[in-house]
């Protein structure tokens, strides 16, 4: 996209985007300040003494956001007047970010981030805090757009939706959480949730019909604007000999493609997606908690909330972001400001559990596959498969069987007896197995990072690797 452009030409291109971008952000903060002022929601954060006069000004939230708006306006001017390179992150920071990131830091970092957000939600939903984070997210995007490698990947037309998804999810997660926090407080005080206050009935014409109409017009306008601003991608005509590197599925499936790093295609592409769909469908039937129906709450349904958020935000969305924005040629990891170099080599020396066990542990060679010539042709594959499974691959087989067969009863008796009692055998087993499958991905990730473990069970003779 930026191929063949000199640095100056590239910056000019970036500036044509950044000018309007920063102006919009300035307007956003200006409107916020205006709104706080008009609705009398101004709060004095601190008093700033004016030197020599002996008086002091009340620095209110509205004033602060106004100042932030002015900063964005200045950035717009800087970016718009050909000085876009000033409005960027320092080279040393970018280097540090590139060096410091990798699949491990990324995955662990986002997980820890979510946990912190969850436990400190009371703090993060406060409007001033949330608004600051919101501004910082946009600022980070803007400052990064002057980096060629970052621009190249984020502004790729088919990647733009992911950027939108990230911002929309941030917004809606804030909205839902702030209501849930408020509702939880109300419920603790014996008050009904906010939603109960709007219990009166209104006529659908005009109240709903007009909302729908306005939404439709606004959406149409937005789509037309998007369509004019960003041409749909059309690359060269298809060729079966020129394989692009990296070859990527459409962005919404890149979480699955990312799983291919840890799982074979039969798991990442077939079994796990089927289980995701089945698991989603099972949610209403395994969540026996009657509370929290029809209003936002967290405290009344901590368990289902935490499981779903982990599954959706961490295992689905952040994996997609990783797969789309940070995986380059040969599916190597590239930092956000790193050039996608097709020649980057990453040493892959992953080891199967059986090799660890027989070769490194016991110092012998892997047991050979039995021929089983005495079995009929029809039965021989079965015989061979199971003799490998319980022979060469025994350590992994025991671990996996233990995980899926022995863990659920242990959970039922020792960890979640309350759940088991209320759910009954079948429902509890479904819940336990779905959760164990979900947890198997992070577990495999950690095993890979820590032990370079490739497969727990590896039977390539039968395409069966787990």
């Amino acid at each position, binding site marked *: 996209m930026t191929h063949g452009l000199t640095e100056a030409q590239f910056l000019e291109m970036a500036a044509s985007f950044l000018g309007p971008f920063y102006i919009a952000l300035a307007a956003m903060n200006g409107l916020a300040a205006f709104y706080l002022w008009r609705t009398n929601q101004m709060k004095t954060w601190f008093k700033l003494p004016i030197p020599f006069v002996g008086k002091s000004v009340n620095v209110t939230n509205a004033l602060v956001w106004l100042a932030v708006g002015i900063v964005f306006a200045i950035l717009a001017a800087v970016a718009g007047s050909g000085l876009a390179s000033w409005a960027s992150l320092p080279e040393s920071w970018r280097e540090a970010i590139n060096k410091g990131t990798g699949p491990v830091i990324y995955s662990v970092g986002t997980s820890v981030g979510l946990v912190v957000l969850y436990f400190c939600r009371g703090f993060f939903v406060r409007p001033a805090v949330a608004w600051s984070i919101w501004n910082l997210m946009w600022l980070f995007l803007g400052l990064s757009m002057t980096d060629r490698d970052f621009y190249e990947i984020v502004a790729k037309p088919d990647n733009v939706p992911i950027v*939108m998804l990230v911002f929309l999810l941030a917004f809606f997660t804030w909205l839902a959480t702030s209501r849930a926090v408020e509702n939880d407080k109300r419920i603790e005080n014996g008050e009904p949730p906010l939603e109960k206050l709007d219990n009166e009935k209104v006529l659908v014409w005009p109240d709903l019909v007009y909302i729908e109409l306005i939404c439709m017009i606004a959406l149409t306008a937005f789509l037309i604007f998007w369509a004019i601003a960003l041409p749909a991608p059309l690359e060269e*005509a*298809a060729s079966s000999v020129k394989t692009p590197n990296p070859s990527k599925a459409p962005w919404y499936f890149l979480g699955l493609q990312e799983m291919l790093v840890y799982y074979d295609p039969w798991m990442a592409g077939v079994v796990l997606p089927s289980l995701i769909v089945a698991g989603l469908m099972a949610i209403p039937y395994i969540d026996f*908690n009657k509370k929290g129906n029809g209003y936002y709450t967290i405290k009344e349904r901590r368990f289902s909330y935490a499981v779903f958020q982990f599954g959706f935000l961490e295992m689905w969305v952040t994996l997609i972001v990783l797969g789309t924005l940070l995986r380059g040629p040969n599916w190597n990891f590239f930092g956000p400001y790193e050039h996608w170099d097709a020649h980057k080599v990453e040493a892959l020396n992953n080891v199967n559990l059986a090799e660890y066990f027989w070769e490194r542990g016991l110092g012998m060679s892997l047991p050979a596959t039995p021929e089983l010539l005495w079995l009929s042709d029809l039965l021989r*594959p*079965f015989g061979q498969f199971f003799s490998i499974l319980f022979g060469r691959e025994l350590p992994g087989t025991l671990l996996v069987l233990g995980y899926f067969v022995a863990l659920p009863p242990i959970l039922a008796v020792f960890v979640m007896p309350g759940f088991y009692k209320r759910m009954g055998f079948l429902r509890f087993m479904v819940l336990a197995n779905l959760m164990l499958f979900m947890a198997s991905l992070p577990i495999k990730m950690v095993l890979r990072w820590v032990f370079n473990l490739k497969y727990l069970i590896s039977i390539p003779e039968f395409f069966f690797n787990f």
Partner: protein
Amino acid sequence: MPGLGEIIRESQIWKSIFRHPMPLDRRNRIVVMLTNFFLHLHPVSIKKQGIALSYTWCMGGVTFFLFLVETVTGVLLMFYYRPTVEWAYTDIQMLRDVHSLGILREIHRWGAHAMVITVWLHMYRVFLTGSYKPPREFNWVIGVFLLLLTLLLSFTGYLLPWDQLAVWAITVGSNMARATPILGHEGPGQQLLTLGGVDMITNASDARFALLGAREVGEETLNRFYILHCIAIPLAVALLLAIHFWRVRKDGGISGPL
């Protein structure tokens, strides 16, 4: 003298189309909801909370609207597009460079991406408000089918421009089907299905072949995906949407605290 508007509204044609007077007073605002085909999807009155943007985020409605946009722009695009290896790419090129309505393609493509996002957000909000709990369990299940079909719609459409992006994305995506247990020719257990020593599951009979209609993404695949994209999946979505909306009302309207 009656005004022009009044003349129109009093005419036999107008009255034959709209079976009710203008919804200006309370009575007629109720009548309009009951007698208009498009409006009768809605109830007559609704709890304020059910239309609060901060509650539903309007995401189900937005998804539905995007589906309609995709239908209309999609039909128009079909006028300009031939699903053959010979023409597909050039037809899209023409849409970009020649036809004045080429912007339809942009709207259609960005609308499709947006629909994937909004359907996720809709599911997100339904989960966060616990709206899948009784009596709405089954509507959630229908929703999951809709989610799946939305992704498949987007996936099948991705192939149609027949450029490098399209063909390789579908190749990567459908390669997974090769590894389907038992039914894929590189899947675990495929050796188990043999007949007199001959493999039954080969690259010309496995799950991937069924998806692509061939061993590689090619002419047959384009035809298959075109029909799925333009006819089969949209019909399935339309049917499920009808049930989805019907169930929203039968289950007691938008969820809310008891």
